[in-house]
């Protein structure tokens, strides 16, 4: 198949370019092939010639070399006894002109490359690919070259690096070159290579240097040793910055989800003094709403499938908010002034909801197809890889927080909510329908949790009991930040999210939880109502 496509391209190129070039090229091609086929010839040197043709600026030569190298790899190149070189197939082709070969001798067998030659061919093929127009092809080729760096052709790689626009691929190639340089016996080459490695810091670069420094020949040379050690130190600094940034980043995305969960909790707690243990289940409801939207879009509008995540945002919000208001209407409003009993009632609701979803959807994780634009990520700096789904989580959390802030600060509902939070009885005297405000606020809080569920579908697993783990952390946010304070919720979810992610990689999740708890108990000693306590008059 591959060969067919290349053949077609070659013919096309040949038609487009003039006959004169083609005539020269054909002669040149047959000379190269002859060198390859010569019995006393060095096959490896001839291969280098092919690659040189393959990386020239002539599109036609490139395509030809690609074809020949592939033919050799597939054991399809036949050096006929008549001196003609053909590529096996129906019909057989003249390897120099790529036209149907006039007289092929069926008795001649193709050249079968040895294992050593196979590796060289692989590198040769990759080297030609480095000059391809496709980014992915080049990236694959660069990885291939890096894997067998000992065999690469420095002139060609240098040329490829100069041409390369993508910094990732360029750094892979630079590292491959440098690794080859480290293997050299020449001291100047080694020093240059060490310097080059230090320019492209990454885990692999560090490993390469660490392996290098383990050699006796390196240890005995103080100048090289010093250079390596300073290079390793330089890479370490750069990597630890990267690591710090990536921890910061994952902490930020965790904080985003915490923020969405805790905002609703905080509003409800501040307003009604009610702790809702079923809050985590609204996250779960939001996530399962997203799941339903995803299924629906896949079945009925596959063209718009990637947009399901945006469709899910309002859907999940509304479904969770309605569930929240129903909970308020049927349970919570009977339990005002009995906060401890509310805790138990909402716990009962939460186990019923979990069981219900288990019965409806099964207790295993549901699988999501990530929208195309959230796949993958970006290497920002060495050791710091930003995934798009986490960026999405952070941005969405930020936008939703701003929207909530606007609702609380700018709308009438927000005004009534704040009035009721501050002084319920006075607000009622002034004609605020506190019960209605409560219900709407509860709906808002549940809806926000539902949105957290939407975000979580992209960064965590979704199952009926997904909410329970989160809700403990969100309560900690509310306790630390102060109930009802938006600013407090932001600051404390950021703090807790980051602390969690900073401690977790080194001491484990348990230590992170315990540290957070201790911190909170200590802070509460000084500020019993949380960091940003609202001034309420009760």
């Amino acid at each position, binding site marked *: 198949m591959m060969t067919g496509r290349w053949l077609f391209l070659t013919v096309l190129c040949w038609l487009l370019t003039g006959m004169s070039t083609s005539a020269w090229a054909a002669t040149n091609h047959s000379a190269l092939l002859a060198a390859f086929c010569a019995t006393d010839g060095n096959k490896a040197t001839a291969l280098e010639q092919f690659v040189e043709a393959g990386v020239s600026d002539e599109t036609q030569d490139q395509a030809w070399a690609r074809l020949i190298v592939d033919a050799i790899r597939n054991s399809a190149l036949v050096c006929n006894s008549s001196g003609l070189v053909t590529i096996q197939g129906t019909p057989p082709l003249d390897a120099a002109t790529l036209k149907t070969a006039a007289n092929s001798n069926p008795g001649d067998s193709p050249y079968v490359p040895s294992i050593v030659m196979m590796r060289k061919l692989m590198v040769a093929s990759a080297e030609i690919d480095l000059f391809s127009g496709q980014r992915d092809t080049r990236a694959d080729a660069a990885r291939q070259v890096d894997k067998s760096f000992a065999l690469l052709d420095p002139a060609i790689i240098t040329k490829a690096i100069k041409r390369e626009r993508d910094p990732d691929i360029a750094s892979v190639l630079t590292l491959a070159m440098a690794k080859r340089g480290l293997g050299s016996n020449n001291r100047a080459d080694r020093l240059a290579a060490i310097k080059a490695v230090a320019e492209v810091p990454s885990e692999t670069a560090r490993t390469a240097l660490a392996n290098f420094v383990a050699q006796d020949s390196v240890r005995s040379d103080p100048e090289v040793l010093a250079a390596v050690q300073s290079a390793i130190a330089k890479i370490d600094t750069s990597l630890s910055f990267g690591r710090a940034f990536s921890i910061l980043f994952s902490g930020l995305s965790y904080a985003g989800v915490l923020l969405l969960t805790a905002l609703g909790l905080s509003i409800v*707690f501040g307003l009604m*003094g009610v*702790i809702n*243990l079923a809050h985590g289940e609204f996250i779960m409801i939001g996530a399962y709403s997203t799941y339903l939207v995803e299924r629906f879009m896949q079945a009925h509008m596959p063209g718009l499938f990637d947009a399901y995540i945006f469709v899910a945002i309002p859907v999940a919000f509304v479904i969770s908010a309605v569930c929240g208001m129903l909970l308020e209407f049927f*349970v919570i409003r*009977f*339990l005002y002034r*009995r*906060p*401890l*009993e509310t*805790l*138990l*009632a909402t*716990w*009962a*609701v939460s*186990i*019923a909801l*979990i*069981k*219900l979803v288990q*019965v409806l959807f099964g207790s295993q994780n549901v699988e999501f197809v990530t929208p195309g634009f959230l796949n993958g990520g970006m290497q920002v700096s060495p050791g710091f890889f930003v995934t798009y789904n986490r960026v999405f989580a952070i941005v969405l959390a930020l936008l939703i927080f701003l929207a909530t802030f606007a609702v609380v600060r700018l709308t009438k509902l927000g005004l009534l909510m704040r009035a009721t939070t501050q002084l319920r009885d006075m607000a009622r005297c002034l004609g605020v329908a506190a019960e209605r405000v409560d219900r709407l606020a509860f709906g808002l809080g549940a809806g926000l949790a539902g949105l957290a569920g939407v975000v979580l579908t992209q960064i965590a697993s979704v199952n009926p009991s997904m909410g*329970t783990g989160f809700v*403990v952390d969100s*309560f*900690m946010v509310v*306790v630390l930040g102060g109930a009802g304070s938006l600013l407090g919720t932001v600051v404390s979810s950021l703090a807790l999210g980051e602390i969690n992610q900073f401690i977790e990689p080194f001491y*484990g*999740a*348990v230590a992170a*939880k*315990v540290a957070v*708890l201790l911190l*909170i*108990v200590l802070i*509460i*000693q000084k500020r*019993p109502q949380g960091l940003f306590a609202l001034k309420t008059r009760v």
Partner: protein
Amino acid sequence: MTTLPETAARRNWTLSAFLSKWMEIGIVPVLILVAAYLPFAYFAIPEASALHMSLFGINLIGQIMCFALLALALDLVWGYAGILSLGHGIFFGIGGYLMAIYLLNSAYAETNVLPDFIQYMGTGGFPTVWKIFSRLDVTVLITIVFTALVAGVFGFVTFRSRINGVYLSIITQALTYALMLLLFINDVGLGGNNGMTGFTNIAGLRIAGVSTQIGLAVCSCVVLVVAYVGVRYLAHSSLGRALIAVRDDEARMRFLGYRTHTLKLIAWCLSAVIAALAGMLYVPQVGIVNPTIVSPQLSVEIAVWVAIGGRGTLIGAIAGAILVNGLKFWLSSQLPEVWPFILAGVTLVIVVAFGNGVWGTLKAAGEEANR
């Protein structure tokens, strides 16, 4: 004309008095009777009789008694001091795990085979600290002291900084969660995920033996009775009245010169010790201890038992635990899918409509009619 209301009043007076006085005292002989009946029901009554009890049933009663003990412990702090702890599983777990350590020690002394998880740890033996737990009486003593110490430190810090109400509930729940995660880790050396099992004997008796299991069930009943009498005495003493006052208006009690946090601390530590005793009785009866006994789930459930039975009544808490767990054991074998819905439904109805629980509502009805 005049006789009618009188008789009504007299009848209601009897109901109220019956509930609040006779039943609250009467539960003691009832529980003692149950304890006495258990060995009798197994050994003396022929199997064909309806009054005969299988070992499974007796074991179940023993476990339920442990849960009742837990409920009693929680009712002391929640019903009387107004502290809703969602972390009593921690103390239950401390008792359970320390008992398991003792049981493993005695199993090793008998069989000379180390449990799997210790072998995986590669230490070649039990940790040195475990040697303290080689005798049952010492283990019980240490557990009581250790639990009181842990509860004391936590209580001192939280009560002194005036963390109460839902804040305290949340923090205790988070602590339970953290402890459970900790116990799930294999490197902690307490069996990790699989927990600790493989017990062979307790104080020289075969643990799987019929008489040992019946003895443990009887022991659970007896400890429940003793704890109930003790707590009820305390609740009706001046300390109990002070605790109720703290529950209802802590600020005023403080202004009156009471050290409210000391009062709460006493109730808290006592409650923790009772919960630990429940754990110590529970583990040899189920034959295993694993991190699920400190799951936040169980700790909330304890509060649910108390709420259903009626908090602040002691007897209600015990009745709630017995009712809910009896129902749970019965229904989870019959209709495992439906049990969570029933538990949720019952909890909701009781909490929303009958805030005082079953016992509290009955009592209030009696008092209301009496008026």
